[in-house]
C-alpha cells in the first residue's frame, strides 16, 4: 500500500510538471497575442458541430477550448511535431542526437520530485505527505544538482548539430547557465541559513506566520536574486542569447526538428514552472493562503485546498515570467555576463554575510 501511495505521489509530481508546462505553452501563445494586440490561435476546433444530442455538451466544451486556442497550441502543435521528419545532420551520431533532448528534459522533471505540494494528512489510517521524495535529506541542494545537470542536454545538442551556429549557441548557453548557477546557489544558501534547514517541507511550515520574503530584508534580496537567475537559467528573453535568432539562427536548436525540438521546448516551460514553484515554496508561503493565515495539516480537505492555493500562486509567477519575456528586449552578451559576475554574485555574498549577522544578532 505504501508503494501505491509512492507511485501516486510520483505520478502527481510528473503530472504537475507536464500540466504546468502545457499551461505555460498556452499562456505563451495566447498571452503573447494579447500583449502584442493580436488575436492569436483561435481557429482549430472552434467550429466543431454535431447532430448527436448526447455529444452536444462535449462539443460545446471543445468549441470553447478551440476559441481559447488550447486545442491549437497543445493538441495540433503536438501532433504536427510527431508527424514531422526527424532530421539528423550528416556525420552526427544519431544516438547522441536523440540523447540530447532527453538529457534536457529529465533533470527538470526529476527536480519536481523533492517539491512538497500540500500539508501532510491522514487518510484511511495512512500518514501521507504529498512530496514524492520526502525521505531525502537536502531538498534544496537536490534542486541545485538537477540545475547543474540540465547543462548536458544543451551542450550535447550544440555539439551534435555539427555546425557553427549550434556550437556557438551551446557555448553561450553553457556559459550563461554556469554564471547564473552561482548567484542562485548563494541565494539558496541564504535561504538555508535563515530557515536553518535544507528540507523544503519544514521551510514552508515555518512560513505559517510571516512569509519567507518578509522575514528579513536579506530574504527579500535573496528572492530577487533567485528570481532573476532562475529566469536566466530558463534561457528566455531577456536572457535568450543562446538562441538569439538574429545572430545565430536558433542556437543549439538549429539542427533539431519535430518531437525532439518539442522536448527542448517542454524542458524550457517545465523550468519556468519549476522556478515559480520554488519561488512560491521558499519565499511566498507555499500552501499558506495569506501571511498570518496558515493552513493546518492533518485533514485531507486542508491538503486538497493546499494544492489549489499553491497552484494559484505558481500560476501567478508563471504568467509573470511570460509577461516579462514578452515585455523586455534582449540583453547584450557583455551586459548578461556583467549582471551575473559583477552584480548579482557580489550582492548575493554581501546579502549572505548580512543574513548571518542578522541571525547571530537575533
Amino acid at each position, binding site marked *: 500500500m505504501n508503494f501505491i501511495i509512492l507511485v501516486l505521489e510520483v505520478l502527481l509530481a510528473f503530472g504537475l510538471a507536464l500540466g504546468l508546462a502545457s499551461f505555460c505553452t498556452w499562456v505563451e501563445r495566447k498571452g503573447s497575442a494579447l500583449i502584442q494586440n493580436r488575436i492569436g490561435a483561435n481557429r482549430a476546433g472552434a467550429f466543431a458541430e454535431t447532430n448527436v444530442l448526447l455529444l452536444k455538451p462535449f462539443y460545446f466544451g471543445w468549441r470553447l477550448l478551440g476559441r481559447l486556442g488550447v486545442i491549437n497550441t497543445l493538441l495540433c502543435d503536438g501532433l504536427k511535431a510527431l508527424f514531422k521528419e526527424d532530421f539528423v545532420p550528416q556525420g552526427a551520431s544519431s544516438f547522441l542526437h536523440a540523447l540530447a533532448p532527453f538529457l534536457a528534459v529529465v533533470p527538470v522533471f526529476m527536480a519536481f520530485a523533492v517539491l512538497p505540494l500540500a500539508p501532510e494528512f491522514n487518510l484511511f489510517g495512512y500518514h501521507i505527505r504529498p512530496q514524492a521524495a520526502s525521505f531525502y535529506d*537536502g531538498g534544496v541542494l537536490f534542486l541545485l544538482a538537477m540545475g547543474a545537470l540540465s547543462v548536458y542536454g544543451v551542450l550535447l545538442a550544440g555539439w551534435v548539430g555539427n555546425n557553427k551556429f549550434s556550437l556557438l549557441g*551551446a557555448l553561450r548557453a*553553457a556559459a550563461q547557465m554556469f554564471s547564473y548557477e552561482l548567484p542562485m546557489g548563494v541565494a539558496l544558501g541564504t535561504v538555508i541559513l535563515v530557515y536553518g534547514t535544507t528540507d523544503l517541507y519544514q521551510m514552508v511550515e515555518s512560513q505559517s506566520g510571516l512569509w519567507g520574503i518578509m522575514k528579513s530584508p536579506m530574504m527579500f534580496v535573496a528572492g530577487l536574486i533567485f528570481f532573476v537567475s532562475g529566469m536566466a537559467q530558463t534561457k528566455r528573453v531577456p536572457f535568450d542569447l543562446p538562441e538569439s535568432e538574429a545572430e545565430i539562427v536558433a542556437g543549439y536548436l538549429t539542427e533539431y526538428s519535430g518531437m525532439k525540438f518539442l522536448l527542448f521546448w517542454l524542458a524550457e516551460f517545465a523550468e519556468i514552472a519549476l522556478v515559480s514553484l520554488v519561488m512560491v515554496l521558499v519565499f511566498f508561503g507555499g500552501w499558506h493562503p495569506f501571511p498570518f493565515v496558515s493552513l493546518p495539516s492533518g485533514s485531507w480537505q486542508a491538503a486538497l485546498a493546499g494544492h489549489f492555493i499553491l497552484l494559484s500562486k505558481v500560476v501567478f509567477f508563471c504568467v509573470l515570467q511570460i509577461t516579462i519575456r514578452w515585455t523586455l528586449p534582449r540583453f547584450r552578451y557583455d551586459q548578461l555576463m556583467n549582471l551575473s559576475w559583477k552584480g548579482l554574485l557580489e550582492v548575493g555574498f554581501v546579502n549572505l554575510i548580512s543574513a548571518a549577522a542578522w541571525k547571530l544578532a537575533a
Partner: protein
Amino acid sequence: MTALFWLLAFIVLSSGVAVVSLRSPLNSALALALNLLAVAGLFAMLQAHFLALAQVIVYAGAIVVLVLIALLLLSSKIEQHKRREDYLAVAAIVLGSLFLVVLFPLLQGALPQISANNVQVTAGTVAEIGRLLFTDYVFLFQLAGLLILTALCGAVMLARSRPGQGG
C-alpha cells in the same frame, strides 16, 4: 535494495571501463558523467545524501561540464580518432596489476571491518558534515579555501589581457 546496488555497481564498473576504452573523447567524458552519477547513487543508498548531492553538483555538474566545454572549443568537428598504440595498453595493464598488488594487503586488512551494521548512518548528512567542517577540521577547511582562492587568482592572472598584446 540489493538489486539496485548491483545495478549501480554494474553501471559504475562498465562506464569506468568505457571512459578509458572509448575512442571519442566526447563519449569518454559522457561515460565519466554517467560513472559519477552512479557513484552518487551508491552514496545515496548509504544514506549519505549530502555526499551524493555534492558529487552531482561538483563533479557531474561542474567538472565534467568544463571538460565538455574544453572539448567543444578544441575540436568543433566530429573527427576520426587514430588507433591507440598497443604498447600503452600493455604498460597500463602491467602498472595496474602492480598497483593492485600493493593495494591488496591494505584492502584485506580494512574491508572486513566495514559492514552494513557498523557504518555510521549519520556520517554523510548535511548537519554532520557541517559540524565536522566547522569544529574538527576548521583550519584544514580554511586552508583549502585559501588554496582555491590562490588558484583562482592565478587563473585570472594567466587569462588577463596584457597591454600591447591585444584582446
